[in-house]
Every structure is written in C-alpha cells, then in structure tokens.
C-alpha cells in the first residue's frame, strides 16, 4: 500500500470517529421516539402537552404534563433572573477590573463551582437551605420553587460567567482605547462600548445557562418538592419535567403507558434544550461583532 492510499484511509477513519457524536445524537432521538411514541396511541399530543392532570398511576391514568412544563419554566426563569446579573457582573469584574492575581483565583473558583456534582448541590439545598427556609419564613415546606431556583442559579452561574467573559475578552482593544480617548470613564466605557460589543456572546451565555438549568435533574428532584400542580406562589412545590422522569422511571413496569409517557417527557425536554442550543448557536454566529463597523 503506498503512502497516498494510506493517508486517505487514515483521513476517513478519523472522519468516521468524528461522526460518532452525530450518530449518538441520532441514536438519542431514535431511542426516545422508539420508547416514547407509543403513549400517543393513548393520548393525543395536545392532551399530553396541555393536559392539567398528571396522575400516571391512577385508574384510569391521566397523562397531562402541563403542570410539569410550568414547573420547569418557573424554576428556570427564576434561576435565570438570579444567575444572569451575578454571572455577567462576575465576568465584567474578571475581564475588565480585577487585578491579575484575583482574576486567576476567581476563574478557578468558578471552575470549581461548575465542578460541584449536582447531587451535592441538591443535598445542600435539601438538608441545609430547606429547613432554614421553612423555619425563617414559617412555610409548610422548604422544598419549593425559590429554593430550587437558588440552587439552579448556582449551577448556571459558571456557564453564564465563563462564556460572557470570553465574549468580553474578545472585544478589540481599540474600542476601549477610542472610548478613553474621548474622555469616557472606565464605567462609561464598559456600559456604552464593551457591553454592547459583547452582547451577542452574552446572549449566547444566557441561553446556554438556561438550557443547563432546564435540563438539570438532581437539584429539582431533591429540592423542588415534587407537587405536580400549577404553583400559586413562589413558595409552592413544583415537579419539573426532569424530576418526574428520574423519580418515576424506577417504579414503572417496562413498556407500560406510564413508562412511555416518561420517554415522551424526555422528547419534550430534548426538544426544548435543543431549541435553546440552536438559538444560542444562531445568535453567536449571526450577530458576531466583526470589525468596528457594525457597532
């Protein structure tokens, strides 16, 4: 075998390996639909998505996941409201203000925070925050939306902060120098020049942080309380979609209607996070700052 053929073969072997990611993505879709679609023989897509009652083990069972979707959205939104200001501010501090030594330490802190296993954070919320919250605010339970959102925010902060920091770091130096030359203060430069130039990267960061929060399982399983009803206050319990899957999969008979309804929730969750990721990808490519002409 001569050198050229060998090189070509090697190239295609590597191509094959790099296709594995895409193949796995395909297999995920295949398995979800294979196990999840049978439920739609029993309930319509509309009744499944917008049904108000999730009683999968009753007789007759009822498979409406609307309360679960609402649960997921509520904790994700509240977590985003907490995580975005903290994450973006920390990114500004790291990339624009902090001295070198603090910068390095803070980056490591954020990396370690990202490394904390979700079950540990869930445990922390359950054993330490929940009893404290219950006593301090005199609530029926400390396992509620606020608690879950705070913990989810802790998980989303590293994603938001590190991607925002990359975006801020990528803003060309001439932009800042031009702003200083016009007599702007550092604060005015950050608000009027750097942030607008980095806004597409920061939006991407927020989208990815939200995707992380909506798909996170252990935290909402342990801390959100588990009530499958539309919440009336922020201190109510909810049962977000991942929590339902994780809590109920262990006790359903194989290939029962309940079993396939859990896979169908997986399909909904997969589509939601996929949408978030594709929007993030689109935003980061479409609105990327190229040169100074578009500012």
């Amino acid at each position: 075998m001569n050198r050229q053929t060998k090189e070509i073969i090697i190239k295609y072997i590597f191509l094959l390996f790099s296709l594995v990611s895409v193949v796995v993505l395909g297999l995920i879709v295949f398995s979800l639909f294979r196990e999840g679609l049978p439920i739609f023989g029993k309930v319509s897509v509309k009744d499944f998505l917008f049904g108000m009652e999730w009683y999968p083990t009753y007789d007759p069972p009822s498979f409406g996941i609307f309360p679960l979707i609402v649960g997921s959205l509520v904790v994700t939104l509240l977590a985003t409201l907490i995580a975005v200001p903290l994450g973006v501010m920390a990114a500004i501090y790291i990339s624009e203000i902090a001295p070198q030594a603090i910068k390095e330490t803070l980056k490591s802190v954020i990396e370690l925070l990202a490394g904390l296993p979700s079950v540990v954070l869930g445990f922390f919320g359950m054993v330490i925050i929940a009893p404290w919250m219950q006593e301090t605010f005199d609530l029926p339970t400390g396992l509620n939306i606020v608690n879950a959102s705070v913990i989810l925010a802790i998980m989303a902060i590293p994603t938001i902060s590190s991607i925002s920091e990359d975006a801020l770091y990528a803003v060309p130096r001439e932009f800042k120098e031009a702003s200083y030359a016009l007599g702007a203060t550092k604060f005015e430069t950050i608000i009027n020049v750097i942030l607008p130039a980095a806004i597409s990267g920061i939006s991407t960061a927020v989208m990815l942080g939200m995707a992380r929060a909506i798909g996170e399982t252990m935290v909402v399983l342990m801390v959100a309380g588990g009530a499958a009803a539309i919440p009336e206050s922020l201190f109510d319990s909810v049962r977000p979609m991942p929590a339902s899957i994780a809590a109920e999969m262990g006790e359903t008979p194989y290939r029962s209607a309940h079993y396939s309804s859990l896979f169908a929730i997986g399909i909904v969750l997969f589509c939601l996070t996929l949408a978030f990721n594709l929007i993030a990808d689109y935003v980061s490519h479409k609105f990327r700052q190229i040169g100074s002409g578009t500012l």
Partner: protein
Amino acid sequence: MQSSKNNSMKWRYLKQHVFFGIVRASALIITLTLGGIIFYIVYNGIGAISWDFITKPPTHSMTQGGIMPAILGTIYLTVGAIAIGLPLGIASAIYLTEYAKQGRVIRFLKVGINCLAGVPSVVFGLFGLGFFVIFLKFGSSILSGSLTLGFLILPTIIGASEEALKSVPQTFREASLSLGVSKWQTTYRIVLPNAMPGILTGSILGIGRAAGETAPIMFTAAAYFTAKLPGSIFDEVMALPYHIYVLATAGTNIEATRPIQFGTVLVLVAVVLGIDLIAIIIRSYMRRNKRW
C-alpha cells in the same frame, strides 16, 4: 460653570464607584457561595470519615458501616467512561483541526457536537436505558453506565482536545511537512505529543464530571444496594452520587443516617474537586512554562 463641571465629573466617578462596588460584590457572593458550601460539607462530614468508612461495605440496611462498594463502583464507571470518551474525543478533535476543511462538513459536525453537549443528563439516562439496557440488551450494568457516561463527556473532551491541538503552532506542522513527512506522521509524531498535556488536563475536567453525575446512571448502572462486589462488566454497581441520593431521600432512617450522608458527600466532593483542582494546577503550571 466651573463648579457644575466639577460636580458632573464627581457624579460620573461616583457612578463608577457604585458600579464597581456592585461588580465586586457579585464576585464576592460567588466566592462565598462556593466557600460556604464546601465549609458546610467539610464541617458536617469530617466526623464520619474514618479508615473503616472508606474500606468497609454498608451494614444494617445501610444505616451503619462504610461506602467502599460505592467508591469502587464510581471508579469502575469513571474508568469505563474515559475508555470510551477519550479515544473517540481525541480522534474527533484530530479530524476537526487537522483534516477537515472549513465548510459544510465541519459546520455540520460542530452543530452536532454542540447539540450533544446540550442534551440534559437525564435524557442521556433515558437514551442509555432505551438503547444500551433494552435495545442492545446489556441490562443495567457497568457497561451500559460507562457507555452512557462516555458519550456524555465526549463533547467536553472534543472541546478540550481541539483547543490543545489548535494551540500547537502552525510552523511545527510546516517544518515537518517540508521534510517530506506525511500528514499522519506529522500529526502523530509532532502535533499530538505537543498537544497531549493540554488534551489531558482538559479531559480531566470531563472525568470529574463523569464521576459526579447521577441522572445518567440511575437507570443504566446504579444499584440501591449490592451484597457482593461486581464480578463482570455486566453487573450492577453502587455509585457514590446515587448512594447519596438514596440515603438522603429513601434510606431506612433518613435523619439518623445524616452523618453517613455528609460523609459520603464529603468523599464525593473531595474526589471530584480534587480531580478538577489537579487539572487547574497542571494547566496554570503549563501556561507559565510554555516553550513557544
């Protein structure tokens, strides 16, 4: 006129002061959060740690004894995940940086990898259950769990490897190619050795993630309790993250086993953050001693 100008300057700097204060406070809150969590876990968990706790199996329906089978299970699953994720990840990154031309193929692969990175861990668990456990009939086993975790960390490893490969200067490749060395030999002999430290440190972060994940192994590998240690890769195992979840939510006596729970959490955090910390330290050391 002069005084109003001074006022406005003062006002502008006051705003800056307040803003910087808020920004510093945010950074401080994040640091204190991490510090607080670690402090609470160490403070409550250190009492449970002993040699027996780490080397003995649980006894009395998991209300006493140690966590050795769970530690062992986590090691098995993590090693399995690396065995799958690392070679595939490095090979994908080599194709993306060394072979693929900018264009549709690379864009297609990158979108695929990004989407895979965004798949929630519980969906990975469903995939593992539907595909490995049921479709391929591996059952709930070390094999199913390792495959699921391996594909979960694949995007992380690809990202880390890509970055490391890109940081090898183009001149290295050109020098090698100009000597008549083939593309593959250049990649294998010149590019990979120079990128290896970067690939490994980046991948260690992925390994830390695999060791700490719970949702993907819940339906694919983890057992509530096993009387014996696993004998083959087709056996179920106990694992640290799942053990914490079980003890904290479904144990025989949840309040009485709190010390054991905190002890297990401390062991898991020490393992995962220890792995991450090693990666961070090696990386900062490498950055300082970079030869090019």
